[in-house]
Protein backbone atom coordinates (compact mmCIF):
# COMPACT_ATOMS: atom_id res chain seq x y z
CA UNK A 1 0.00 0.00 0.00
CA UNK A 2 2.61 2.52 1.05
CA UNK A 3 4.84 1.55 -1.88
CA UNK A 4 2.13 2.26 -4.42
CA UNK A 5 0.67 5.29 -2.62
CA UNK A 6 3.37 6.92 -0.50
CA UNK A 7 1.41 10.14 -0.08
CA UNK A 8 -2.32 9.33 -0.05
CA UNK A 9 -3.38 12.89 0.83
CA UNK A 10 -1.25 14.37 -1.97
CA UNK A 11 -2.63 11.88 -4.51
CA UNK A 12 -6.20 12.58 -3.46
CA UNK A 13 -5.55 16.32 -3.64
CA UNK A 14 -4.12 16.05 -7.15
CA UNK A 15 -7.07 13.96 -8.37
CA UNK A 16 -9.49 16.48 -6.83
CA UNK A 17 -7.65 19.35 -8.52
CA UNK A 18 -7.82 17.58 -11.88
CA UNK A 19 -11.55 17.03 -11.47
CA UNK A 20 -12.12 20.66 -10.47
CA UNK A 21 -10.15 21.92 -13.46
CA UNK A 22 -11.99 19.68 -15.93
CA UNK A 23 -15.27 18.00 -15.05
CA UNK A 24 -16.61 15.49 -12.55
CA UNK A 25 -16.92 12.55 -14.95
CA UNK A 26 -15.69 8.93 -14.59
CA UNK A 27 -13.36 9.40 -17.55
CA UNK A 28 -11.61 12.35 -15.93
CA UNK A 29 -11.43 10.40 -12.66
CA UNK A 30 -9.44 7.66 -14.42
CA UNK A 31 -7.24 10.14 -16.29
CA UNK A 32 -6.61 12.13 -13.11
CA UNK A 33 -5.68 8.99 -11.20
CA UNK A 34 -3.31 7.96 -14.00
CA UNK A 35 -1.58 11.33 -13.63
CA UNK A 36 -1.71 11.69 -9.84
CA UNK A 37 -0.20 8.31 -8.91
CA UNK A 38 3.04 8.77 -10.91
CA UNK A 39 3.24 12.35 -9.64
CA UNK A 40 3.10 11.23 -6.02
CA UNK A 41 5.67 8.49 -6.75
CA UNK A 42 7.93 11.18 -8.22
CA UNK A 43 7.38 13.19 -5.03
CA UNK A 44 8.50 10.19 -2.97
CA UNK A 45 11.79 10.15 -4.92
CA UNK A 46 12.54 13.60 -3.53
CA UNK A 47 12.32 12.27 0.06
CA UNK A 48 10.64 15.28 1.60
CA UNK A 49 10.30 15.43 5.38
CA UNK A 50 7.18 13.52 6.30
CA UNK A 51 5.30 15.47 8.94
CA UNK A 52 3.41 13.46 11.51
CA UNK A 53 0.10 14.97 12.54
CA UNK A 54 -0.80 13.98 16.07
CA UNK A 55 -3.80 15.87 17.21
CA UNK A 56 -6.76 16.49 14.92
CA UNK A 57 -8.67 18.39 17.62
CA UNK A 58 -5.76 20.83 17.89
CA UNK A 59 -5.82 21.27 14.10
CA UNK A 60 -9.47 22.26 14.24
CA UNK A 61 -8.77 24.66 17.14
CA UNK A 62 -5.82 26.20 15.27
CA UNK A 63 -7.94 26.63 12.13
CA UNK A 64 -10.58 28.46 14.13
CA UNK A 65 -8.03 30.73 15.82
CA UNK A 66 -6.31 31.52 12.50
CA UNK A 67 -9.52 32.29 10.59
CA UNK A 68 -10.66 34.57 13.42
CA UNK A 69 -7.31 36.36 13.63
CA UNK A 70 -7.01 36.88 9.87
CA UNK A 71 -10.54 38.32 9.70
CA UNK A 72 -9.93 40.64 12.67
CA UNK A 73 -6.58 41.88 11.40
CA UNK A 74 -8.02 42.42 7.91
CA UNK A 75 -10.58 44.77 9.41
CA UNK A 76 -8.12 46.59 11.66
CA UNK A 77 -5.53 47.09 8.89
CA UNK A 78 -8.26 48.23 6.48
CA UNK A 79 -9.27 50.77 9.14
CA UNK A 80 -5.67 52.00 9.40
CA UNK A 81 -5.50 52.50 5.62
CA UNK A 82 -8.93 54.13 5.53
CA UNK A 83 -8.54 56.54 8.43
CA UNK A 84 -5.25 57.85 7.12
CA UNK A 85 -1.91 56.16 7.22
CA UNK A 86 -0.30 59.24 8.72
CA UNK A 87 -1.99 59.06 12.10
CA UNK A 88 0.37 58.53 15.03
CA UNK A 89 1.16 54.86 15.06
CA UNK A 90 4.34 53.01 15.77
CA UNK A 91 5.43 50.10 13.68
CA UNK A 92 8.53 48.11 14.27
CA UNK A 93 10.34 44.84 14.61
CA UNK A 94 9.52 42.32 17.32
CA UNK A 95 11.95 39.57 18.22
CA UNK A 96 10.68 36.24 19.58
CA UNK A 97 12.66 33.20 20.64
CA UNK A 98 10.78 30.13 19.47
CA UNK A 99 10.98 26.67 21.00
CA UNK A 100 9.39 25.17 17.90
CA UNK A 101 11.81 23.03 15.88
CA UNK A 102 9.78 21.07 13.36
CA UNK A 103 10.26 22.54 9.83
CA UNK A 104 6.66 21.92 8.79
CA UNK A 105 5.37 23.62 11.94
CA UNK A 106 7.65 26.58 11.29
CA UNK A 107 6.41 26.79 7.70
CA UNK A 108 2.83 26.81 8.97
CA UNK A 109 3.67 29.52 11.51
CA UNK A 110 5.25 31.61 8.73
CA UNK A 111 2.12 31.10 6.65
CA UNK A 112 -0.11 32.27 9.51
CA UNK A 113 1.99 35.33 10.33
CA UNK A 114 2.33 36.44 6.73
CA UNK A 115 -1.29 35.83 5.81
CA UNK A 116 -2.58 37.96 8.68
CA UNK A 117 -2.36 41.59 7.50
CA UNK A 118 -0.34 43.68 9.93
CA UNK A 119 2.34 41.12 10.71
CA UNK A 120 5.15 39.98 8.43
CA UNK A 121 7.75 37.29 9.01
CA UNK A 122 11.12 38.82 8.20
CA UNK A 123 13.92 36.61 9.48
CA UNK A 124 14.40 33.33 11.31
CA UNK A 125 17.66 31.81 12.52
CA UNK A 126 17.38 28.09 13.01
CA UNK A 127 20.43 27.76 15.26
CA UNK A 128 19.08 30.07 17.96
CA UNK A 129 15.36 29.97 17.24
CA UNK A 130 15.29 33.76 16.96
CA UNK A 131 12.39 35.02 14.86
CA UNK A 132 12.06 38.60 13.66
CA UNK A 133 8.54 39.82 12.88
CA UNK A 134 7.58 43.24 11.58
CA UNK A 135 4.34 44.58 13.04
CA UNK A 136 2.42 47.44 11.44
CA UNK A 137 0.57 48.67 14.51
CA UNK A 138 2.35 48.13 17.82
CA UNK A 139 -0.44 48.82 20.29
CA UNK A 140 0.87 49.52 23.77
CA UNK A 141 -1.29 47.01 25.61
CA UNK A 142 -0.64 44.14 23.20
CA UNK A 143 2.58 42.26 23.41
CA UNK A 144 3.06 40.63 20.02
CA UNK A 145 5.80 38.33 21.22
CA UNK A 146 3.40 37.01 23.85
CA UNK A 147 0.66 36.52 21.23
CA UNK A 148 2.90 34.40 19.01
CA UNK A 149 4.33 32.53 21.98
CA UNK A 150 1.06 31.79 23.79
CA UNK A 151 -1.50 31.66 21.00
CA UNK A 152 0.11 29.81 18.10
CA UNK A 153 3.17 28.01 19.39
CA UNK A 154 1.48 25.65 21.92
CA UNK A 155 -1.11 24.56 19.34
CA UNK A 156 1.54 23.98 16.68
CA UNK A 157 3.60 21.99 19.16
CA UNK A 158 0.58 19.88 20.02
CA UNK A 159 0.01 19.13 16.34
CA UNK A 160 3.54 18.40 15.16
CA UNK A 161 5.67 17.37 18.13
CA UNK B 1 -33.60 44.32 -11.60
CA UNK B 2 -30.99 41.89 -10.33
CA UNK B 3 -29.10 42.27 -13.60
CA UNK B 4 -28.91 46.03 -13.12
CA UNK B 5 -27.69 45.68 -9.53
CA UNK B 6 -25.03 43.20 -10.51
CA UNK B 7 -23.81 45.10 -13.57
CA UNK B 8 -23.55 48.24 -11.44
CA UNK B 9 -21.61 46.42 -8.73
CA UNK B 10 -19.27 44.88 -11.31
CA UNK B 11 -18.68 48.31 -12.86
CA UNK B 12 -17.93 49.84 -9.42
CA UNK B 13 -15.55 47.08 -8.39
CA UNK B 14 -13.80 47.12 -11.77
CA UNK B 15 -13.34 50.86 -11.41
CA UNK B 16 -11.81 50.42 -7.95
CA UNK B 17 -9.54 47.64 -9.20
CA UNK B 18 -8.34 49.81 -12.08
CA UNK B 19 -7.49 52.58 -9.60
CA UNK B 20 -5.66 50.02 -7.45
CA UNK B 21 -3.70 48.82 -10.49
CA UNK B 22 -2.76 52.40 -11.37
CA UNK B 23 -1.54 53.01 -7.81
CA UNK B 24 0.55 49.84 -7.92
CA UNK B 25 1.98 50.85 -11.29
CA UNK B 26 2.85 54.28 -9.90
CA UNK B 27 4.63 52.72 -6.93
CA UNK B 28 6.41 50.36 -9.30
CA UNK B 29 7.69 53.23 -11.44
CA UNK B 30 8.51 55.55 -8.52
CA UNK B 31 10.37 53.05 -6.36
CA UNK B 32 12.21 54.43 -4.37
CA UNK B 33 14.08 51.16 -4.01
CA UNK B 34 14.13 47.90 -5.93
CA UNK B 35 12.23 45.97 -3.24
CA UNK B 36 9.38 48.52 -3.42
CA UNK B 37 9.11 47.94 -7.15
CA UNK B 38 8.98 44.15 -6.76
CA UNK B 39 6.36 44.41 -4.00
CA UNK B 40 4.26 46.75 -6.16
CA UNK B 41 4.52 44.35 -9.09
CA UNK B 42 3.24 41.52 -6.90
CA UNK B 43 0.27 43.64 -5.81
CA UNK B 44 -0.34 44.58 -9.46
CA UNK B 45 -0.48 40.90 -10.41
CA UNK B 46 -3.04 40.17 -7.67
CA UNK B 47 -5.21 43.16 -8.60
CA UNK B 48 -5.24 42.19 -12.28
CA UNK B 49 -6.11 38.62 -11.33
CA UNK B 50 -9.14 39.81 -9.33
CA UNK B 51 -10.03 42.06 -12.28
CA UNK B 52 -10.11 39.03 -14.58
CA UNK B 53 -12.38 37.18 -12.12
CA UNK B 54 -14.86 40.08 -12.21
CA UNK B 55 -14.76 39.89 -16.03
CA UNK B 56 -15.54 36.20 -15.73
CA UNK B 57 -18.61 36.91 -13.60
CA UNK B 58 -19.82 39.43 -16.17
CA UNK B 59 -19.43 37.26 -19.25
CA UNK B 60 -19.93 33.83 -17.68
CA UNK B 61 -16.91 32.43 -19.49
CA UNK B 62 -14.54 29.91 -17.90
CA UNK B 63 -11.66 31.23 -20.02
CA UNK B 64 -11.18 34.15 -17.64
CA UNK B 65 -10.85 31.76 -14.72
CA UNK B 66 -8.03 29.94 -16.47
CA UNK B 67 -6.32 33.20 -17.39
CA UNK B 68 -6.55 34.27 -13.73
CA UNK B 69 -4.96 31.01 -12.62
CA UNK B 70 -2.10 31.46 -15.09
CA UNK B 71 -1.55 35.08 -13.97
CA UNK B 72 -1.42 33.97 -10.32
CA UNK B 73 1.17 31.33 -11.24
CA UNK B 74 3.34 33.73 -13.26
CA UNK B 75 3.11 36.36 -10.54
CA UNK B 76 4.40 33.97 -7.90
CA UNK B 77 7.28 32.65 -9.99
CA UNK B 78 8.44 36.07 -11.15
CA UNK B 79 8.21 37.69 -7.71
CA UNK B 80 10.07 34.81 -6.08
CA UNK B 81 12.79 34.98 -8.74
CA UNK B 82 13.13 38.75 -8.36
CA UNK B 83 13.30 38.53 -4.56
CA UNK B 84 16.00 35.90 -4.90
CA UNK B 85 17.82 38.20 -7.29
CA UNK B 86 17.68 41.09 -4.79
CA UNK B 87 19.12 38.85 -2.12
CA UNK B 88 21.92 37.18 -4.02
CA UNK B 89 22.46 39.08 -7.24
CA UNK B 90 21.65 36.00 -9.32
CA UNK B 91 18.57 33.85 -9.77
CA UNK B 92 20.05 30.41 -10.38
CA UNK B 93 22.90 29.36 -8.14
Amino acid sequence: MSRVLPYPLLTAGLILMWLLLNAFTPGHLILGTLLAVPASLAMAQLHPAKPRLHNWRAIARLAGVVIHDIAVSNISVARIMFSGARLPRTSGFVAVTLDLQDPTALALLAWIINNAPGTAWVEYRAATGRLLVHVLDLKDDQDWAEIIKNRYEPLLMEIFE
Amino acid sequence: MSGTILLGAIAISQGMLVVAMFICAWRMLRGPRAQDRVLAMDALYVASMIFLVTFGIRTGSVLYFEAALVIALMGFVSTAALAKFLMRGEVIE
Partner: protein
Amino acid sequence: MNDLSALPLWAAILIALLLVAGSTLTLLGAVGLLRLRSFYERLHAPTLGTSGGVLLVLIASMLCFTVLQQRLVVHEVLIFIFITLTTPVTLMLLGRAALYRDRTEGNDGVPAFEPEEIVSEADQ
Protein backbone atom coordinates in the same frame (compact mmCIF):
# COMPACT_ATOMS: atom_id res chain seq x y z
CA MET C 1 -22.96 36.72 -22.47
CA ASN C 2 -24.10 35.66 -19.06
CA ASP C 3 -27.77 36.20 -18.36
CA LEU C 4 -27.26 38.02 -15.09
CA SER C 5 -30.91 39.07 -14.82
CA ALA C 6 -31.82 35.39 -14.38
CA LEU C 7 -30.35 35.58 -10.88
CA PRO C 8 -32.76 35.85 -7.96
CA LEU C 9 -32.67 39.21 -6.20
CA TRP C 10 -31.13 37.93 -2.93
CA ALA C 11 -28.24 36.33 -4.82
CA ALA C 12 -27.65 39.47 -6.89
CA ILE C 13 -27.52 41.70 -3.79
CA LEU C 14 -25.21 39.27 -1.96
CA ILE C 15 -22.87 38.94 -4.95
CA ALA C 16 -22.84 42.72 -5.43
CA LEU C 17 -21.94 43.29 -1.76
CA LEU C 18 -19.17 40.65 -1.84
CA LEU C 19 -17.70 42.08 -5.05
CA VAL C 20 -17.67 45.66 -3.82
CA ALA C 21 -16.25 44.67 -0.40
CA GLY C 22 -13.52 42.56 -1.99
CA SER C 23 -12.40 45.21 -4.43
CA THR C 24 -12.56 47.85 -1.67
CA LEU C 25 -10.13 45.77 0.37
CA THR C 26 -7.82 45.43 -2.64
CA LEU C 27 -8.02 49.17 -3.28
CA LEU C 28 -7.24 49.91 0.39
CA GLY C 29 -4.21 47.64 0.13
CA ALA C 30 -3.00 49.60 -2.89
CA VAL C 31 -3.64 52.88 -1.05
CA GLY C 32 -1.47 51.55 1.76
CA LEU C 33 1.24 50.86 -0.80
CA LEU C 34 0.97 54.51 -1.78
CA ARG C 35 0.78 56.17 1.62
CA LEU C 36 2.82 54.16 4.11
CA ARG C 37 6.26 55.57 4.70
CA SER C 38 8.81 52.78 4.95
CA PHE C 39 9.26 49.60 2.95
CA TYR C 40 8.60 47.36 5.94
CA GLU C 41 5.26 49.09 6.54
CA ARG C 42 4.36 48.78 2.88
CA LEU C 43 5.10 45.06 3.11
CA HIS C 44 1.81 44.67 5.01
CA ALA C 45 -0.35 46.45 2.43
CA PRO C 46 -0.77 43.81 -0.33
CA THR C 47 -1.83 41.19 2.24
CA LEU C 48 -5.21 42.93 2.41
CA GLY C 49 -5.80 42.18 -1.26
CA THR C 50 -4.44 38.66 -1.14
CA SER C 51 -6.25 37.42 1.95
CA GLY C 52 -9.49 39.39 2.21
CA GLY C 53 -9.95 40.78 -1.28
CA VAL C 54 -9.31 37.58 -3.22
CA LEU C 55 -11.48 35.54 -0.85
CA LEU C 56 -14.52 37.82 -1.11
CA VAL C 57 -14.38 38.18 -4.92
CA LEU C 58 -13.90 34.44 -5.41
CA ILE C 59 -16.85 33.66 -3.11
CA ALA C 60 -18.92 36.08 -5.22
CA SER C 61 -17.84 34.28 -8.39
CA MET C 62 -18.60 30.83 -6.95
CA LEU C 63 -22.03 31.97 -5.76
CA CYS C 64 -22.84 33.54 -9.12
CA PHE C 65 -21.94 30.48 -11.20
CA THR C 66 -23.50 28.05 -8.74
CA VAL C 67 -26.86 29.84 -8.74
CA LEU C 68 -26.85 30.48 -12.50
CA GLN C 69 -25.90 26.96 -13.59
CA GLN C 70 -27.94 25.19 -10.85
CA ARG C 71 -24.95 23.06 -9.87
CA LEU C 72 -22.01 23.44 -7.50
CA VAL C 73 -19.19 25.40 -9.19
CA VAL C 74 -16.17 25.56 -6.90
CA HIS C 75 -13.13 25.67 -9.18
CA GLU C 76 -12.35 29.19 -7.87
CA VAL C 77 -11.17 27.45 -4.70
CA LEU C 78 -8.04 26.49 -6.64
CA ILE C 79 -7.10 30.15 -7.20
CA PHE C 80 -7.71 30.89 -3.54
CA ILE C 81 -5.57 27.98 -2.34
CA PHE C 82 -2.82 28.92 -4.75
CA ILE C 83 -2.80 32.62 -3.80
CA THR C 84 -2.88 31.99 -0.04
CA LEU C 85 -0.09 29.45 -0.33
CA THR C 86 2.21 31.60 -2.44
CA THR C 87 1.83 35.15 -1.09
CA PRO C 88 3.45 34.40 2.30
CA VAL C 89 6.41 32.89 0.47
CA THR C 90 6.95 35.95 -1.72
CA LEU C 91 6.49 38.34 1.21
CA MET C 92 8.97 36.40 3.32
CA LEU C 93 11.53 36.36 0.50
CA LEU C 94 11.07 40.09 -0.10
CA GLY C 95 11.33 40.92 3.61
CA ARG C 96 14.53 38.96 3.97
CA ALA C 97 16.00 40.48 0.81
CA ALA C 98 15.16 44.00 2.01
CA LEU C 99 16.67 43.34 5.45
CA TYR C 100 19.81 41.94 3.86
CA ARG C 101 20.16 44.93 1.55
CA ASP C 102 19.53 47.42 4.35
CA ARG C 103 22.11 45.75 6.55
CA THR C 104 24.82 45.60 3.91
CA GLU C 105 24.23 49.28 3.15
CA GLY C 106 24.23 50.14 6.85
CA ASN C 107 20.85 51.91 6.82
CA ASP C 108 19.18 53.04 10.04
CA GLY C 109 16.06 51.56 11.53
CA VAL C 110 16.74 47.89 10.92
CA PRO C 111 17.69 45.46 13.69
CA ALA C 112 21.35 44.59 13.72
CA PHE C 113 22.66 41.29 12.49
CA GLU C 114 22.94 38.81 15.35
CA PRO C 115 25.93 36.51 15.03
CA GLU C 116 24.69 33.07 16.01
CA GLU C 117 27.55 32.11 18.32
CA ILE C 118 27.22 35.13 20.60
CA VAL C 119 23.46 34.80 20.96
CA SER C 120 23.58 31.07 21.65
CA GLU C 121 26.22 31.65 24.34
CA ALA C 122 24.09 34.30 25.98
CA ASP C 123 21.08 31.98 25.98
CA GLN C 124 22.87 29.20 27.79
